[in-house]
């Protein structure tokens, strides 16, 4: 019986201390936001979620973006409004179930202010509605599927800093038809949502302009020997091959196309998924002459990107490993900016962030000086710089985005 008394005493003690702790809380601000507010007491961190892909074959995109976010946090001095920023990274994988699970997990955590992610559009399809329901604003650094910002299907709390495929695919097609003057095109995608969509948009627009799409081919992620598919394409006699895919399949296509008879003089064009130094490292000499579409770097101060690269190398011991670090950096910065705008700061340092207000603050982002361009969020959640430029690689060794005269050289619009 003695034992039982001990047990009861301890239990009482526990309950008492909990009640005491609960009584200390005194509300000073009444939240009227329909989706509620995040309360951050002095010394507590502002918690930002990152739902990106960290496992499987696509992991390098997610890790790349995560590093971009971390550098952004460093650039903010690790804090916002006197509160440290804490990044909560969850693996959203590259499929709907991963997106759903990661979103549910983040949505269950009431201290999460906003989420950067997801990496893959397929994951975003499921994550966006869940996070919107929970009132968590979500900015994706790399989703490109038109579906996500289509007014009919978009979730209200969803934004992105990556380019809608519709925009970029159209620019590429127009450039090829009008500027390069080619009339026969071939496309290659890799079975990813991004590439397939881009290739299709390109083909559609190219046909509308009056061109002919002679081949629409596809490779698989992980393929290394591209000669057969290139030989197939060569037989159709295109003047340009559009391959809006990723590393390393992209540079392999560029490199091996030089080894396939009939393709030596065909023009090659990729998209922003390939716009990184790694492209020339793998493709070597074959990279020279390749066109890549990308946000227009001359629209803003490109030295910032260089500073970013320096910090990246310092922090992670290597160059960015994929294409969406800068987009992620900008996404984090936009979020931080919006938090500053929306937060209600009390005297003792406690801040309240009304969720809908935060969303509106993000939506109002205008002429934001990011490293991927001048960002303005439109009413559907597309925040990427609408100015897309086409660059041409002119050197197999040099990669300098700060100087428009050096490779890659900006050639369109002039």
């Amino acid at each position, binding site marked *: 019986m003695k034992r039982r008394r001990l047990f009861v005493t301890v239990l009482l003690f526990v309950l008492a201390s909990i*009640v005491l702790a609960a009584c200390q809380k005194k509300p000073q601000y009444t939240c009227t936001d329909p989706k509620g507010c995040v309360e951050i007491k002095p010394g507590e961190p502002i918690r930002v979620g990152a739902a990106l892909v960290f496992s499987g074959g696509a992991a390098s995109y997610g890790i790349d973006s995560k590093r971009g976010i971390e550098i952004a946090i460093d650039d903010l001095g690790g804090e916002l409004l006197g509160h440290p920023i804490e*990044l909560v990274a969850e693996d959203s994988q590259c499929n*709907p179930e991963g997106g*759903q*699970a990661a979103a549910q997990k983040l949505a269950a955590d009431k201290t999460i202010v906003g989420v950067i992610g997801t990496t893959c559009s397929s994951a975003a*399809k499921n994550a966006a509605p869940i996070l919107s329901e929970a009132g968590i604003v979500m900015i994706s650094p790399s989703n490109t*599927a038109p579906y996500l910002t289509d007014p009919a299907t978009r979730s209200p709390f969803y934004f992105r800093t990556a380019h809608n495929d519709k925009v970029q695919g159209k620019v590429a097609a127009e450039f090829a038809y009008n500027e390069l003057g080619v009339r026969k095109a071939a496309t290659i995608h890799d079975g990813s*949502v991004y590439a397939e969509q881009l290739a299709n948009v390109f083909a559609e627009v190219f046909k509308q302009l009056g061109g002919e799409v002679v081949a629409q081919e596809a490779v698989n992620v992980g393929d290394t020997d591209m000669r057969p598919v290139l030989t197939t394409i060569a037989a159709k006699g295109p003047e340009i091959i559009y391959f809006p895919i990723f590393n390393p399949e992209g540079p392999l296509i560029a490199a091996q196309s030089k080894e396939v008879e009939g393709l030596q003089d065909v023009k090659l064009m990729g998209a922003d998924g390939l716009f990184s130094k790694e492209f020339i490292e793998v493709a070597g000499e074959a990279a020279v002459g390749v066109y890549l579409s990308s946000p227009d770097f001359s629209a803003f101060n490109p030295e910032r990107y260089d500073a970013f690269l320096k910090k990246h190398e310092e922090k992670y011991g290597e160059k960015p490993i994929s294409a969406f670090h800068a987009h992620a950096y900008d996404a984090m910065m936009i979020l931080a900016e919006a938090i500053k705008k929306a937060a209600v700061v009390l005297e003792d340092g406690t801040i309240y962030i009304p969720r809908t207000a935060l969303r509106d603050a993000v939506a109002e982002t205008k002429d934001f000086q990011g490293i991927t361009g001048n960002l303005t969020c439109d009413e559907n959640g597309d925040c990427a710089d609408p100015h897309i430029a086409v660059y041409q690689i002119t050197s197999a060794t040099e990669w300098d985005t700060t100087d428009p005269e050096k490779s890659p050289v900006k050639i369109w619009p002039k």
Partner: protein
Amino acid sequence: MKTQLRLMFRAGLIGGLIALHLTLVGMVEALNKREIIEDIITLGQLLLMGVGLGTAVYALGKLPRERRTQREGWWVALGAVSVVALILGLLALAIKPLNLRFMFQNASPALVRILTFDTPGVLGLVKLWAFLLFSGALALVYLYIPQPWDRTLSYAVGITLLMGILRALVAPLLPDIISDFLFTPSGLTQIGAVILVVLWVLFLHYWPDFKARLETWQKEAQTPQGAPIRRRLNIAFLVAILVLLLLPAILRDKGSYLFEVLDMVGIYIIMGLGLNIVVGFAGLLDLGYVAFFAIGAYTMAVLTTPELPFVRQYIPPMNFWEALPIALLLSLVSGILLGVPVLKTRGDYLAIITLGFGEIIRLLVISDLLKPILGGAQGITGVARPTFGSFVVNESWEYFYIILVTIGIGIFISTRLRDSRLGRAWKAIREDEDVAVAMGIDHVSAKLTAFATGALLAGMAGALFSSRLYSIAPHSFNVLISINVLCLLIVGGMGSLPGVVVGALALVGLPELLREFAEFRLLVYGAALVIMMLYKPEGLWPEKARVSRVAREVFGDRLKTLKVE
């Protein structure tokens, strides 16, 4: 003396290598961001502590029991831990001058700071050493705690830390007041940790008493005069079941993530039950099981989505219940169709052929060829959800009930078939196909039935999966799913039905909860599989010798005179 030195260095080297691996892979640094107990210890430090503790335990384990608490034990354990400290210290020192970062991306200044506890110079190394000595000493302290308390205390600490790690699961389930008090956003508060340890110690201490009482009740209930007790026990049992069944509905708002996880576990359990019939009962090693899962999921999606204009020309979108039988039928038929060629092959060839089938299905799904029908790389959105009248099943906790019912059906089918003529035929084929055939068993139809039943369950799981997700993408159906299902069978215990549940919880549930450490999820998963196979190859819950229902009925009391093994 010499053997002790050898033991010390051996243990130290093993521990040191593991510590090196963990640090250079980046685990320590990544986990260090998570504070398990506020301002006291991070998960990364806990990991290093675990290595120190493990090294000491390993070294002590090699010593005879009585010598562990003597001076010898102290020397060996702490010496081994010091070797670990030495190795980590050398790493911390070498990172900068040798530019290790050129090769090992995680050999960063941040790592050095963690290893030296933010203290530059020699003092930092001393701190590292002291920290590891402390963790090694824990193993020795354990030896000095008197008997029942040593275990109780260590379990309590372990469970408390686990609660801190799995905060995302536990905290939302508690009322806000309590969870705010016990948990920080990343782990436990200091008071919370103390309280939880105390509570767990008390619970674990009284648990044996309680269990013993329960057992005496049960025994009493079986005596003729135990009717009232029996009645009370039955009521308690029913109430417990009822509460369990109602739990999802009670917890629905707080536990949306929990049920997200449980749904996924449930779907894997359904698949596991199906594959258990194919591999566990009939012994047919199927590595392409994801094919049937994909067929179920895609049939459901194609038939019910408003998208896909090509298909919609011919068939209007169906609702969930209209599409379900078709999905099941198709997966059943595909099970038979894929089963036919497989009949001719055995063993590893069977494995590779089925693997090939799985890949073929995935490639077809993603291909431009079938894009008008299957949606290609973009997948399909707008899959129907189950409806009951005007009620639409929408939330994950609502799906959980449907999944639960399906699991129930799966278990029912499995148990019924296991002890039937067909089940025996499967087992015979598994054990020795030649002899089975010589016994007049039609191995063709037995194998095809196994494939069909397995495919049916996988198709069901797939249909639920796609409906629950509302949209599906081809990348979800890769070979990893087949491997995962097979592994959960083996981790749970081949052929054992409770093993399927345990295996799914261990291999799907746990990694799901640790989603934030996903960078290391498969690393840990792989290591766990290897360790599991090395030390417990029969699984966590192996199939025990059973006496079937009919046997119990037929032989009745005679069973007691027979040896059961």
